[in-house]
């Protein structure tokens, strides 16, 4: 096999550098073989043996397309340069090689699975790169900011080092904010037997608290019986799933699902996040041995679809002007919610302009899969690695992009900024809260 020509601007990530200096070849060999022998099965070998090196998957990857078709970014190259070598050499590689594995798997692939749709054999490149991440995680080779986020999950059971009192205090504050729109709105804490447990991702209480105020209003207007936990277990996000630390991933998911069971709810409704859906719906339950979540989990897109379709929420004034959307891979390509997303977008926007390609075929935002969480050192490469997303949005002529996923939201804000698109980035609930009808009897009384 010819070596790949790799041209990259150097990036300093202390954690990777220090790990490279620390790792011994014995450690590496042991962990690589442990993971391959005990944690993977026929699937990995089938994928590796089936690939005919045709390169069709390259056309799918935003990294490849945005970097002037640089082959080093092609999906097949990413596995050729990582897992293939690890298998072939039976783990006899050095620290520098493992570092490159982490750079590829953690910072140059979003596990978005677009490439799998273009491969004639449906080879799941993302799965193989997750195996690479697993090996890296067990060796401690994880980019600094991603590892820090995973440590936050491990210590606090949430992504953002939010302490227990800060969480509850924020909910009580946002309940009051919600009461500004609808005085009788309530954010019920720890209400056993409620119909719905609402869960969010760590950044909501930390940076985007208004979303909690929004949901307080939406739940009241829709007349739903809901609750939020006042304990850990409220965060449905999971960066440990993406670093490759599956034990912490499972601990976080277990707590989230057991919190719903403790509260005796019928379903978990989650806020607008893609990867959190993946973790709570598939990866977490699978590791725990649950065929599906013990308490069903409903993504915000499905939830809003049901509320609007059933008339529980009515739209009073649609948002004006051209508005477009991002399809979060984890809930659209891999979760099938693209049509529902278009239904709700059309319901709240006067002029919804779709993107091309769209729905299951849409490009990834390039933030997901933990790639935005590797932090500032890698930001430039990330935004440059999604030029085609910027071009795609530009073609819509929209003034606003709706992103029903937190990572998409942050990643797209960076792209809008870098490529000077001059567009706003909003969550669906931001648009909904402005567009929905608040029934007369729920409105604040005029003084």
């Amino acid at each position, binding site marked *: 096999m010819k070596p790949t020509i790799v041209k990259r601007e150097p990036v300093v990530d202390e954690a990777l550098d220090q790990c490279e200096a620390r790792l011994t070849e014995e450690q590496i060999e042991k962990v690589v073989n442990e993971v391959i022998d005990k944690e993977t099965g026929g699937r990995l070998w089938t994928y590796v043996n089936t690939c005919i090196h045709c390169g069709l998957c390259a056309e799918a990857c935003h990294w490849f397309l945005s970097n002037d078709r640089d082959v080093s970014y092609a999906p097949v190259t990413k596995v050729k340069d990582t897992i293939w070598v690890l298998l072939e050499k039976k783990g006899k590689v050095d620290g520098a090689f493992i570092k490159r594995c982490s750079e590829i798997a953690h910072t140059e692939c979003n596990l978005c699975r677009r490439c799998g749709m273009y491969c004639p054999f449906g080879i799941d490149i993302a799965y193989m790169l997750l195996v690479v991440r697993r090996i890296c995680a067990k060796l401690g080779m994880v980019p600094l900011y991603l590892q820090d986020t995973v440590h936050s999950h491990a210590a606090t059971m949430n992504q953002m080092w939010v302490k*227990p009192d800060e969480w509850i205090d924020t909910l009580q504050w946002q309940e009051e904010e919600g009461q500004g729109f609808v005085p009788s709105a309530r954010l019920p*804490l720890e209400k056993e037997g409620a119909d719905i447990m609402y869960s969010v991702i760590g950044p909501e209480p930390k940076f985007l608290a208004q979303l909690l105020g929004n949901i307080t209003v939406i739940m009241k207007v829709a007349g739903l019986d809901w609750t939020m936990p006042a304990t850990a277990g409220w965060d449905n996000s999971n960066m440990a799933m993406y670093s490759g630390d599956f034990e912490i991933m499972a601990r976080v998911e277990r707590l989230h699902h057991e919190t719903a069971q403790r509260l005796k709810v019928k379903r978990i409704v989650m806020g607008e996040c893609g990867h959190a859906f993946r973790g709570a719906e598939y990866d977490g339950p699978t590791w725990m041995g649950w065929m599906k979540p013990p308490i069903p989990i409903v993504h915000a897109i499905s939830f809003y679809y049901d509320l609007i379709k059933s008339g529980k929420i009515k739209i009073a004034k649609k948002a004006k002007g051209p508005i477009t959307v991002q399809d979060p891979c984890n809930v659209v390509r891999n979760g099938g919610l693209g049509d529902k997303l278009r239904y709700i977008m059309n319901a709240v926007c006067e002029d919804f302009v779709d993107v091309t390609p769209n729905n299951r075929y849409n490009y990834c935002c390039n933030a997901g899969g933990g790639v935005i969480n590797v932090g500032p050192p890698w930001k430039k490469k990330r935004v440059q690695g999604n030029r085609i997303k910027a071009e795609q949005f530009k073609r819509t002529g929209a003034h606003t992009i709706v992103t029903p996923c937190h990572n998409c939201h942050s990643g797209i804000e960076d792209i809008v900024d870098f490529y000077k698109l001059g567009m706003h980035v909003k969550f669906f609930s931001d648009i909904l809260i402005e567009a929905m009808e608040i029934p007369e009897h729920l409105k604040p009384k005029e003084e």
Partner: protein
Amino acid sequence: MSNIESWDWESKEKMLADTAEWKDRFEDVWEPYISSDGEKIASIIKIGEGEFNICVNGNTWEEPFEKMWYSRFSPDGRLTALISKDAEWTMAVDGVALEETYEYIWDTKFSADGKTIVAIVKQDGVYGMLVNGKVWECPVKLESIASHAISPDGNTVAAIAQTVPLGQADLDGFLKGTWSVVVNGKPWNDNFVGIYGLAISNDGKKVAAEYRAAICEYGIVVNGNPWIEKFGCTWEPVFHPDKSDEIIVPVRQAGQWFLAKNGRIVWDKGFFSLLYQTYSPDGNNIAVAVAPQFGKWTVAVNGQPWSVTFGECVQKPCFSPDGRKVAVIAKDSGKWLLVVDGAVLGEGYDNIWQPVFSPDGDKVICKVEKNGKYAVAVNGEIRGKNYEALWNPVISPDGTRAMICGVESGRYYRKVVSLSNI
């Protein structure tokens, strides 16, 4: 449950409050809680802008507060709530707020007899445990408290706490250990990468927890001393009911889960998943929730799985008082099921609460939910009427009667029925 003998087991039915009428009296009425003896029902009520109170059997506390939440009865019947006045937080017990106030207070817990009431508090950025109105003295400044536990007699209060400050993105600092366990204000000597699953022995003498040794390495630490054995993963430890030197814990090895006792694997069988290990009251038997294969859940008693499996999950098993029977709530095809010794009793429900056995183990009673209404089910079959709200039935100490507390048409009833009649 404290003083269960002295509860009123004679009055057949008492209508203690008309909660429907509360809704006319107050701006908002929150979900109700009842005292363990069923004599009192209480809801937080909103009486105006920034003015809350609590209504107990129709009477409010003398003083309203700016904010209130987490109203809970102690097992000895005192009503607690977390309240805020002048923008400071504290706990109020039976209407009287503690003098000391805090930046924040949460997670109230009680000893089994109700005599000890604890909660976590934060003041000036320092975290601590409030035990019967006094914050414990701790030589170390606690950066956070993740959770806490209290011994049945209330004499031992333990907390999982961050004992070492940690800078932003300080990976090395984190791996050196910033978490420990603090028992009655005294931290363990060592700090750990992570601490989970806190447990206290019934005699209050031992405190155990899971600890994380490295990225993928876990073990159990007891009174500050780690087991030598380490595992790929662990779940929370459980003490033997009488022997505080016996601990069982699920451990993961080579991709399978086993049950370990004091560090050694006890059953030769490994499982895809293993959770909720439970001792029988005499400590002679152990039941656990297991998945022998992916997506197939059951209960294993002393290592022997039942032959029946369930597709979605099983919860924590519970033994009959004599330890001969095991009941568990399982989920299959979207329905919750009551399962006793491997047999499904009755039909499936939308929800089932933790079952209780009669003393002879013949009857299993629980609260169930069907089509938005609640009822009491005996051996899985609904008996008696539907309620708008219902609490889990309690069986009298002599095992002849059950107390059933519920709300019908807004009215709160406490009923005592003969076990042979339901």
